[in-house]
């Protein structure tokens, strides 16, 4: 494997880490403008992260290793996912190991560590956030897995670069009923997984509605910076995954500097567009009641199940 492959991996990981705060800034700015506010600017989350990283973290009384290691673990799982998912190139040294089931499981691992940290504090908020988060995660994980299967059946493998490669070569796969159903299911699952508006409001601090925020209330300083960065990176990676799976054009399928640069630009544009669209949609949506969320997720689970069944029937018999 060439050095260019390693460069691609490094570039996409770097793009996710550095781009995640910018994406959040962009989404906030879009919302602000649509709501008639001036907004804090695209760079604000970056400034927040820099500020928080310099402050001391807190070890609240009675918390243990689960609480202390969770932020790093959250970022770490997302980092590994960011290296695996073919965001820029399908021809990387890790391409053979980029398994879709593994990606879903790693993201779930991040959720689990944060929920455990919430329980570790022993406060009512921590427990409440963890309970809600795990309830949602218990329904999101199967939906993600099912949507994954629907996509991997036509490709004959769960290997991500192979799926993306196949989609670039045969765009018909994406326009098939199974592909569209899977896309719809995956979008809902991504919204739930990243805690966006119909499921959770990322900018709320109201105890009746919050999920993610309730779990991380005790974090401060660089821990909080990591938690925030982890959440932003998850959003970026998942939007990038959506883009790679359903609009795979622009991703480099062979190693060349030009293709890689083009892919970097395409990736940034695609994710920025997806993020802006999501932010714009969020202005018009209301957050769903917590106990209506499972209905939403059950709906998307059924869509995914239909997608899998459809791909069995359409390509099997």
């Amino acid at each position, binding site marked *: 494997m060439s050095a260019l492959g390693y460069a691609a991996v490094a570039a996409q990981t770097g793009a996710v880490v550095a781009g995640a705060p910018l994406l959040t800034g962009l989404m906030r700015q879009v919302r602000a403008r649509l709501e008639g506010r001036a907004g804090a600017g695209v760079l604000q989350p970056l400034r927040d992260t820099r500020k928080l990283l310099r402050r001391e973290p807190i070890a*609240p009384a009675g918390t243990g290793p689960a609480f202390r290691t969770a932020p790093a673990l959250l970022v*770490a799982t997302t980092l590994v996912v960011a290296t695996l998912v073919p965001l820029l190139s399908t021809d990387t040294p890790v391409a053979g190991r980029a398994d879709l089931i*593994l990606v879903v*499981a790693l993201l779930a691992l991040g959720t689990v560590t944060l929920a455990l940290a919430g329980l570790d504090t*022993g406060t009512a908020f921590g427990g409440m956030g963890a309970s809600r988060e795990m309830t949602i995660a218990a329904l999101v994980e199967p939906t993600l897995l099912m949507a994954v299967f629907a996509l991997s059946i036509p490709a004959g493998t769960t290997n991500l670069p*192979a799926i993306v490669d196949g989609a670039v070569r045969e765009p018909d796969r994406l326009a098939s009923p199974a592909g569209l159903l899977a896309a719809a299911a995956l979008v809902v699952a991504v919204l739930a997984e990243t805690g966006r508006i119909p499921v959770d409001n990322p900018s709320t601090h109201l105890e009746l509605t919050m999920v993610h925020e309730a779990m991380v209330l005790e974090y401060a300083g660089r821990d909080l910076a990591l938690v925030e960065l982890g959440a932003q990176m998850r959003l970026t990676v998942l939007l990038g995954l959506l883009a790679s799976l359903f609009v795979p054009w622009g991703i480099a399928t062979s190693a060349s500097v030009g293709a890689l640069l083009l892919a970097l630009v395409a990736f940034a544009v695609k994710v920025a567009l997806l993020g802006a669209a999501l932010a714009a949609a969020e202005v018009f949506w209301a957050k769903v009641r917590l106990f209506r969320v*499972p209905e939403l997720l059950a709906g998307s689970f059924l869509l995914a199940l239909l997608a899998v069944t459809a791909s*069995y029937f359409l390509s099997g018999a």
Partner: protein
Amino acid sequence: MIAAGLGAAGALAAAGAAAGSVLPGRARLIASGVCTAGVGAAGCAAGAGALGGEQWTGRLPELLPLAGTVWQVDALSGLFMAVAGAVVAAVGVYGIGYASGHGTLGLASRTAQAVLPLFALTLILVPAAASVSTFLFVWEVMALSSLLLVLVEHRARAEVRTAGLWYAVMTHLGLVLLLAGFALFAARAGGEGFAELRAGAAELSPTVRGTVFVLTAAAFASKAGAVPLHAWLPRAHPEAPGPVSALMSAAMVNLGAYGIVRTGFDLLGGGPAWWWLGLMGVGGVSAVYGILQAAISSDVKRLLAYSTAENLGLVLVATGAAGLFAASGDQGLAALALAAGLLHVVNHAAFKALLFGAAGAVVRATGVRDLDRLGGLRPRMPVTAGLFAVGALGAVALPPGNGFVSEWLLLQSLIHGLEMPGVAVAIALPLAVGLVALSAGVAAAVFVKALGVGFFARPRSREAERAREAPPLMLAGLGLLALGCAGLALVPGLLGPGLDRAVADAGLPGTGSVAGGALTVRLHDIATSLSPLWVALALTLAVLLATAVPRVLGGRRRRARLWDCGGGAPTPRMAYTATSFAEPLQRVFDDVLAPEQDVDVTHVRESAYLVERVRFRGRVPDRVEHRLYRPVLDGLARTGRAARRLAGGSVHVYLGYGFVGLLSLFVVLVVGW
């Protein structure tokens, strides 16, 4: 190696039983425990020998009258022997620590210490049996010895007696089914040795084959804790002492899976698709139903018992898928599915023995099984908490845990079942994938609850506050299991050749379905691979990076109070309990779980507008048990009560019964013959 291992196991079990029934006090525990661990080690060695390619056939005619006993060990037996042996060895060490300082009432009693080595021996001998009579004999000894061990604390709690009754009845119903199935099989095949059955199976009519499979599979599925025959499992496992529940849940239930593989694939030589679709259905329902019951259970050992039903359900799904693929003609994929199932048996045994062991340590230290009353154990029992976390990581089926590898294999085999023709497959496989995925999702919530509510936060009762770390011998036993979990999680490829041999011995020609050496799990003719070690390394590296970089930039960590909203320090009563943690999930699955809630309002006597007392009671009964068993039990009780009227106490009436009975017998004889 096999013969030597089995011989050593038998001798050690006899020595252990003798020592357990004769020696006094602590010497009894040590002698019996060491012998039990030795039985396990010997069994594990024998199993490892068989996995390495060795075969052994033996005949001990003097052990049973008439038929004698026949034994045969191939790689399939070897796998189950090795798993049971490894679990027994670790639990044997753990058991010495568990029973010491625990009085003579429970596990330390003479009976229990004498029975424990025997139970351990049967766990190893069941897969070695190679004739119907031998098999049933060892099977029944296993059932009886485990029943005695479940009952050892019967004086302390009334529930133990109920659990024992349920277990005794269920396991013997299973035996009846097994007896009927094997008797029919042996009668038609013209011999009771497994070799004769194998030879005669091809000439049986489809009806007989189907009947034999359904009868034996129902019995074995009941042993594996499959819904709806699982009712004994959530009672017997929690009420048994720690080591016994670990042995039952990690080694005994596996033999249910073994029985299905042995009879379905090896003896009957596979069968039509409907057998396997049925098995997949039972497995899928068990997986989801089991994990949902675990999600709402606040008793830690009951939660683990239901999780066993879930995991064995997954194994049955894999076995059913293997049979389905074989019936459709794709031997390679069938071998892969079966390998996934067998690997899940191994993984489940490792993490479930560890979890039950750690839960046993908690129960021993606190006397409490209710998660709502635990909490705060991490600073008090740090090693136990860490070991429980290792087991929980395996059980949630997320990397880098060991459960992930086998669930990944299972999902891969189900996805690639696409090449199969047929409508049944096209409906069954996506549904199976959905059920497996759903159970994996809920499992994450279950073990976050068990670990987070049970071990983290602050203690919610005085018992939890006073908890002390378990004795070193217990921790040593659990440490061995944790090492096993880590090994299975990081280098599962080492098991590859053994798995292939076991699958081949089940009658599915092994095509090297799982290969790729120690580091990578690569699937034969499927372009997908997984390297757990690489994943673990990448995660470690990323964690180091994510910890080190911010530390360079930021300040030192400062201790502080919890944020209390300005309302004074939070008390344990404010923390989330297991029940409150599970409440949203329970609400989501309302229709499946059917929870019951009672609100009793007592009004003040003078005015109906004033309330004196409100009592709320919420519980979630096992719905299958409620709907399926309750009516049968009620019917039996009603019949019993009605029949009581027949015995009025009058001698004349009894004489009348005898007279009428005799007359009817004559009539039948005259008319019928």
